[in-house]
């Protein structure tokens, strides 16, 4: 086994930011808004780094798909202990329609190319809450999957995963290579230390285009309308300021 772990990290709007819907209801305002690494991705990176510290794996590679700013997220992963990064450049319209299916195709291609032993992802992203990328990646690779992991233990070429499911906790043993998705209680991500942040500057981030991986990015979904719907709008004007903050916009998508 190569001893290499691929960790997917996504750049999302920071969890503490109160989001705003664009005036034309086409989406959420992202310009100038504080972004950071998806909290579940942080947990995934932490788990990978922990495995490396236990000397169970040899290399942690952080991957992110998106425009130039995705490199910030990769740098954060490097500062937490990842060894190198891969930035898959996706910009413009392709980025607007980038969803779990496209990302999982990219990750599957990279996992094969890098001969990864494990692919660890966050269970879902806090902006779209899809909870699909990990599962789709495993399906495309025809690898076993250990999702909603709250405990991961590597035993030779098998992985014991304790999963948080509706009924409680489920323990499974799957063989590697495999895809794992991190749930909240898997670990507590470390703070990057000042020396590690400085070392991260010297670590390499490779630039790759989806075409280089043979991945086609056309979306099969059409985003139609995101906004506060009629009934909710009415309610909003009557409610107090404080309560208004907690109303989330309704997102409608037409799937073709």
């Amino acid at each position, binding site marked *: 086994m190569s001893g290499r772990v691929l960790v997917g990290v996504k750049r999302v709007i*920071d*969890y*503490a*930011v*109160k989001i*705003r819907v664009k*005036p034309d209801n086409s989406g959420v*305002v992202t*310009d*100038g*808004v*504080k972004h*950071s690494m998806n909290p579940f991705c942080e947990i995934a990176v932490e788990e990978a780094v922990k495995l490396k510290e236990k000397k169970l794996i040899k290399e942690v590679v952080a991957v992110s798909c998106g425009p130039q700013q995705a490199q*910030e997220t990769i*740098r*954060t992963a490097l*500062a937490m202990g990842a060894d190198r990064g891969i930035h898959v450049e996706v910009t413009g319209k392709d980025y607007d329609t980038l969803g779990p299916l496209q990302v999982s195709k990219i990750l599957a291609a990279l996992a094969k190319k890098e001969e990864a032993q494990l692919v660890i992802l966050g269970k879902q992203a806090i902006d779209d809450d899809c909870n699909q990328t990990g599962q789709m990646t495993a399906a495309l690779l025809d690898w076993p999957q250990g999702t909603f992991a709250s405990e991961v233990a590597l035993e030779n070429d098998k992985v014991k995963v304790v999963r948080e499911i509706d009924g409680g906790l489920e323990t499974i043993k799957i063989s590697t290579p495999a895809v794992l998705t991190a749930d909240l209680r898997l670990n507590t991500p470390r*703070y*990057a*230390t*000042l*020396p590690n*942040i*400085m070392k*991260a*500057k010297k670590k390499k981030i490779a630039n790759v285009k989806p075409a280089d991986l043979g991945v086609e990015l056309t979306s099969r979904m059409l985003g139609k309308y995101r906004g506060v719907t009629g009934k909710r*709008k009415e309610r*909003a*004007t009557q409610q107090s*300021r*404080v309560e*208004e*903050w907690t109303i989330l916009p309704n997102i409608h998508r037409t799937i073709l």
Partner: protein
Amino acid sequence: MAVLGPLSRIARIGSTFCRNRPLILTKSSQIRGIVSCIDPSHGLTDEQKEFQKVAFDFAANEMAPHMAEWDQKEIFPVETMRKAAQLGFGGIYVQPDVGGSGLSRLDTSIIFEALSTGCVSTTAYISIHNMCAWMIDTFGNNEQREKFCPDLCSMEKFASYCLTEPGSGSDAASLLTSAQKKGDHYILNGSKAFISGGGDTDVYVVMCRTGVKGPKGISCLVVEKGTPGLSFGKKEKKVGWNSQPTRAVIFEDCAVPVTNRLGEEGQGFNIAMKGLNGGRINIASCSLGAAHASVSLARDHMLVRKQFGEALANNQYLQFKLAEMATKLVTSRLLVREAAKALQENHPDAVSLCSMAKLFVTDECFNICNQALQMHGGYGYLKDYAVQQFVRDIRVHQILEGTNEVMRMIISRNLLAES
């Protein structure tokens, strides 16, 4: 942590409520997007933003939840500071070969500003500790650096800085603590006042008189706790800075090895002044963090508190006051960062710039915090609300590290000097 611009919230409220009374703010924020004008990461490099993020996260998770308790129970948070040291905050501008992080003065300012939003008093102590570690790193010989710096950078041991005496505060050069050379030891006699960390710390960087009167007769000695003849006064009861103990440090025939002297005899005052330049930037940075937190608290309160049928945020006087606070905060930040850069580059006017930064920023930030307290009304006076602790904690920044009056002395001397 994310700092959401004041305009965005007002804009959201405006768009739903003020159909018949459109706020001008709504339109302009839609043009500019949600960018907070007081965001402290403006103008920073990506690496500095990473440092800042770690410091903010640490402050929010490890310090802010305990800030009130540390103040009320007067707890010296040793474990939390050691956690901070593990991240590299124990010797931020100390050389890496003895365990420091080797960062610049500007990086340091950014870090202390962020940490201060969690607890001013603890951050201020960490900055004093950093200053002592830097002094030993910069002016000590290799034996001294290797003996003291690694433990200080990891905060295995804590440091205190001893310059002020009961009889010499602003007139620091008139200090009386004497150090008589006897063989291979100095015998110290005298006392120091208002020493931060005094009694709980392990390493004391002491300015004492080895020679003639005035600045040229002062030397710098490192005294370790447990040395016979070293004792401490009672713990002072203070208005703020309660998470660090303050005591008098008393020397009675205290014998300190000559090998513990930093630099040459007579170099002490020079070392002290160089240390204070950085110390002034650090203290100003701590004031900035408190002011930033206070502006955020005031803004949040204004959006929630209602009087006369509407939120305080709709009151023009308070809107203007908040704008003034934000403007003063940003100008203060720019001045501190400029001074930090000047110090890093050994600019010929670095001393004056550091003094200007300390003078302006500590005064303005105190006013900002005070105004934020006022905007909270009666609630601002309750210890349940953090704003009063920021006010109490940064009040002393206008006094120590050189009073703001002494800062004026330094600046006017620079202006009026005959080439």
